[in-house]
């Protein structure tokens, strides 16, 4: 984790194999570039399809004879307009944003303290606490949602965003703690010892030395937590029933489908715009993302 997160994850690949590799141009074209192109096309096609469906007018959408379905002939914003003015979609966007930010903040706060205690305070049994938190990540939401639904109803949180803000940390805290423990490990302990000798208290050390140095780790944990809460489905589906407080994924699946009539244009517009925030965040922080993903696995 540590090396991968600090240095750029670029491998020493260029010279690798090049020394005594017999791979010639045309052969590499067939064995590497062609399959790679197929992979990229297959992996991206659903998004392309989503995007062009969004901008197609209805007469094109259901007429493959006169219009080639792979292109848009006369693009329109009617589907996006319908989504924003005839459904609760803007409301869902706000709710999802609010829930994701609040759950992320709560989880990061809890994880930073826990990771600091486990990695730096060196108390007896720290490893066991770390292991227990790691095991918590292996408990899938599909097992927890029924008893959690019973709890949420009993606590009077049903149909309230607070129910989601409080339950999302169950999968965010283990993940972030795990990531941050690895990150704290990479910060030299000597820096803290110096501060201890100078008379700083433990909390001052955490605030003024460890946290500023751990900013890249905090960013990784933050974007991961935000994306995971944005994408969460089963809790949001179970604990929320009024349309105004639904999250984007749940709203699209439950509210945009009326009986047997599927408004594919609006559905695809909703899916595209709902994916956009995570895609934008991802494109800004892609290096953090890849390195923490690969680092977390290597660890």
């Amino acid at each position: 984790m540590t090396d991968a997160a600090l240095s750029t994850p670029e491998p020493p690949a260029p010279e690798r194999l090049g020394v005594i590799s017999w791979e010639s141009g045309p052969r590499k074209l067939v064995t590497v570039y062609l399959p790679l192109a197929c992979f990229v096309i297959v992996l991206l096609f659903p998004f392309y399809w989503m995007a062009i469906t969004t901008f197609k007018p209805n007469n094109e959408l259901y007429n493959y004879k006169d219009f080639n379905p792979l292109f848009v002939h006369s693009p329109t914003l009617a589907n996006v307009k319908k989504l924003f003015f005839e459904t609760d979609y803007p409301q869902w966007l706000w709710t999802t944003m609010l829930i994701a930010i609040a759950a992320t903040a709560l989880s990061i706060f809890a994880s930073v303290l826990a990771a600091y205690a486990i990695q730096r305070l060196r108390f007896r049994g720290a490893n066991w606490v770390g292991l227990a938190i790691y095991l918590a990540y292996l408990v899938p939401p599909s097992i927890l949602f029924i008893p959690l639904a019973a709890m949420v109803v009993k606590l009077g949180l049903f149909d309230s965003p607070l129910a989601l803000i409080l339950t999302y940390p169950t999968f965010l805290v283990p993940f972030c703690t795990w990531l941050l423990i690895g990150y704290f490990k990479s910060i030299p302990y000597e820096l803290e010892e110096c501060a201890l000798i100078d008379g700083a208290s433990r909390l001052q050390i955490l605030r003024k030395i460890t946290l500023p140095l751990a900013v890249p780790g905090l960013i990784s944990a933050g974007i991961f937590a935000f994306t995971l809460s944005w994408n969460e489905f089963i809790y949001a589906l179970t604990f929320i029933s009024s349309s105004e407080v639904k999250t984007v994924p749940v709203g699209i699946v439950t509210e945009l489908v009326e009986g047997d009539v599927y408004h594919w244009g609006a559905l695809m517009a909703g899916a595209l715009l709902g994916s956009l925030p995570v895609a934008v965040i991802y494109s800004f922080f892609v290096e953090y993302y890849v390195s923490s993903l690969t680092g977390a696995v290597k660890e």
Partner: protein
Amino acid sequence: MADIAQKWGGTREASLAQTSLARLFDWKPFLVFLCLLPAIGLLVVFLTYPLGLGLWLAFTDTKIGRGGAFIGLDNFVSLWHDPIFWTAVGNTIFYTATATVGKFALGLWLALLLNHNIPFKSLIRAIVLVPWIVPTVLSAVAFWWIYDPQFSIISYILKDVMHLRSTNIDFLGTPWAARLSLIAANIWRGIPFVAISLLAGLQTISPSLYEAAMLDGATPWQRFRHITAPMLMPVLSVVLTFSVLFTFTDFQLVYAITRGGPINSTHLMATLAFQRGIPGGQLGEGAAIAVSMIPFLIAATLFSYFGLARRKWQQGETND
């Protein structure tokens, strides 16, 4: 004078209180307790307690809005005689096994391709991860549209462009077609994670091993079989464990694309638990279905983790 004395005294008291507070915060047991409190508190209240509550609910006849009484194994007995439950169990096992094999075969292939020296490597790597970061339900909705019985783009290409068949494919209309369509969507969703994680594993293998093997005249297959595969095992076992765990408990794809249909033939255990527990209101029965996943999960996790992690000491590394 009195003023000044009072002032001095006051500050001294304040500073005493401050130092004792500071000392409390430097007292390690207190600090450890304080730091662990938010995380452990959240996890105990919203994870450990519900886990226990779920086990208890499975043995009661609780309904939504009404507490239940202990009914012993009745929920499990009625599930035992329920053909839909057994279909769901069979589906879940088939879905997990097939999708995992598909994901790992294709993911490993993609990782090996990305490990070559190619232009725009980081861009391609970034693009490849997109299916994994986008909300699963939203890409599932796109697949639902791609699988449309009338306007499927796949049917269009096979029928009108390539003239390979004369009718549209009914992706979601019959049980087996629907199951395979769901598995294809799951594989699509899982390839990026497997590929990028395995790529990280591949990059830790020292190039000198390959050079030595090449000098000894090893073929590409031998290089893969005797260098890449064993060196990749530790990473592979971790990724496999996670993948099996999350595929087995998958909910979103099935719920968004088929909702268990046609006629309950594509239910996974998670979607069946949801259908019985939340819209059906039978919390006790839903909890019983969810609880029946636990033995499978433990077995699958232990198998994929220890089955492969064993290789670690075979390589002569310390088994930490």
